[in-house]
């Protein structure tokens, strides 16, 4: 559980800053993410680590992550139609995307999140 808490501690509550378009004040889209895991399996831990890395590198300051352990809250699996675990759900920006797997393929994670690499966003 410590890993999850770390992630959760790092995530920021951006609801006050969010504007009508769902963007941060600087015009960049805000990311509302939800990571579904099942217990403390190595795969879950790996997914958390990978997610933290991606967020730190590409979404610093404009994301929020909620981690849900389905072994603790099995009922939540239905809400986001979770079948595969781990699944990262991008609730915002819309449309909803589901990124399954341990997030080890960073390029595909970025594709899934539709995050432009930092270099591009700087232009």
């Amino acid at each position, binding site marked *: 559980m410590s890993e999850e808490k770390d992630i959760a501690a790092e995530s920021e509550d951006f609801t006050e800053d969010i504007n009508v378009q769902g963007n941060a004040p600087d015009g960049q889209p805000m990311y509302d993410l939800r990571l579904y895991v099942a217990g403390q399996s190595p795969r879950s831990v790996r997914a958390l680590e990978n997610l933290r890395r991606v967020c730190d590198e590409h979404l610093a300051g404009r994301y929020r992550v909620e981690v849900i352990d389905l072994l603790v809250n099995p009922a939540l*699996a239905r809400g986001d139609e979770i*079948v*595969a675990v781990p699944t990262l759900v991008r609730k915002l920006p819309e449309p909803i995307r589901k990124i399954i797997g341990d997030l*080890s393929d960073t390029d*595909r994670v970025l594709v899934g999140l539709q995050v432009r690499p930092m270099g591009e966003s700087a232009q």
Partner: protein
Amino acid sequence: MKAPKKVWGRRDCSGECCERMSNTAGPASADARVLTGPEKAPTGIKGFDEITNGGLPRGRPTLVTGAAGSGKTLFGIEFLVRGARDFGEPGVLLAFEEAQDDLVTNVASLGFDLEQLENDGLLAIDAFRLDPAEIIETGAFDLEGLFIRLQMAVESVGAKRVVLDTIELLFSALPNEAIIRGELGRLFRWLKDRDLTVVITGERGKLGNLTRFGIEEYVSDCVVTLDHRVEDEISTRRLRVVKYRGSLHGTNEYPFLITEKGLVVVPITSVGLTYEASNERVSSGIPRLDEMLSGGVYRGSSVMISGTAGTGKTSIGALMADASCARGEKALFFSFEESPEQLIRNMASIGMDLRRWVDSGLLLLEAVRPTAFGFEEHLAMLHRLLDEHEPQLVVLDAVASLTSAGARADTTSAISRDLDLLKGRGITTVMTTLTHGESQESSEVDVSSLVDTWLLLRNQESNGERNRLLFVIKSRGSAHSNQVREFVLTDDGAELLDVYVGPNGVLTGSERIEQISWEHLAQTTRADETERRRQELAQRSAALQAQMAALQAQLTAEGAEFDRFVASEAEGRASGVAVRASQGRERSGEQAGGGR
């Protein structure tokens, strides 16, 4: 395209392995304990439990596969609903194909109230919405989410049954087939460990493969295929138990139907020739016909009435139904040709009031176009009506119309199944069938050998008119008349009349009437002659009597004359004596008186 091929190789291998394992394990364990097959979970699907000797293998998965629209989902849902409602086994439905609301709506038309069952805690439905477009794979994953949801559902109702409909969709929705295969293997072990009886539906694959993604590799116990085919524009659904490990099962293709009350599998061959035979006779409603059949037809026997168009087949059928209702026994009139109202009207024209029986609930008139359904639907409908109405007599009018619903061989088989079904229930059956032209003694549908009593109606044409003749061609187990009768429909019902056999053959209709009037005339003439002769005799006798009287009178007169003669003669003699005496005195007085 490469992946499925690999899959097949693997499936074959694993299949063989399983086969070998069970073959070696089977006899060894059988020696140690009492021989019993696998325990079964009844599906409650009509007919299916009969062909599988009790249902699906309990605690094991069964694969139900078929093309789109073949009724797989329905099979699964009925298995759950019946289990929950009738067998006290709550169930779980994992739906991958349809949204929950759609499911609930779709099966509501079959009388399955899924919402109610859910509220009662007998059913848990979890619908999975998998959209490949919003899913992207970024590494290793498992299907723990599916397991967690399944476990939750199973625990929420204490499920004994699970339906996975259609789990194959996982393959198209999620990337990485290898992971899914591994997880499915784990899923089936998981299900088996919990002793859940499972139905997995699968879409039939190309090239005769059972399923598109080869999920049969996980299911080695029981495989059922559903099929929906159209022949001669009539659709027939068929079901076949391809495999049922450790159990005897019917191997035929069984027609099945989707009715308002769920699936009905029609086990054709399960009906054996074991029905009871009653000695009781029931009246045909035509007294003289009963006479011809030595008292009527046996209860529970089958009667076929064949004849060309317009020979009165329907009328006889209706008369028998009418007679049945009059005895207070329920009857079912299954008409393939006329609407109930038309039938009632037509029968009223021969003085038969069917409406009162319909109103009192004794008679059920069911009309359906033969082309409206395939045979199986007909059979199932018959089944349902028998269950609902419980008649003691059934009229099928006219079975020959069924040929328009399919091939002839099928018709024969369908009718023989009808007959078996009805006989098995001890119901007297009357069927009418149309014959054509020359082949009058062969029924259109080749079931004459199956029926117990066969009445043939024939139109005889002569003198510019057609008249109906009735023969009893056969009547099993009873003496029957060999005589031809004329069958006459009048305003007051049907009658059988003796035919007149003359030098020119059998006389019917106006010829018969003519014959009757001739005979009547001849009789009258004879009567007149007798009367005339009687009168003549009377006259002559009167004349003779008169003569006799006259002679008597003459005789009397002559007698009287003679008497008179006799009397006068006696008188004469007496007076002569007196005269002579007085003369004598005179003569003596002369002598004495002369001297004065």
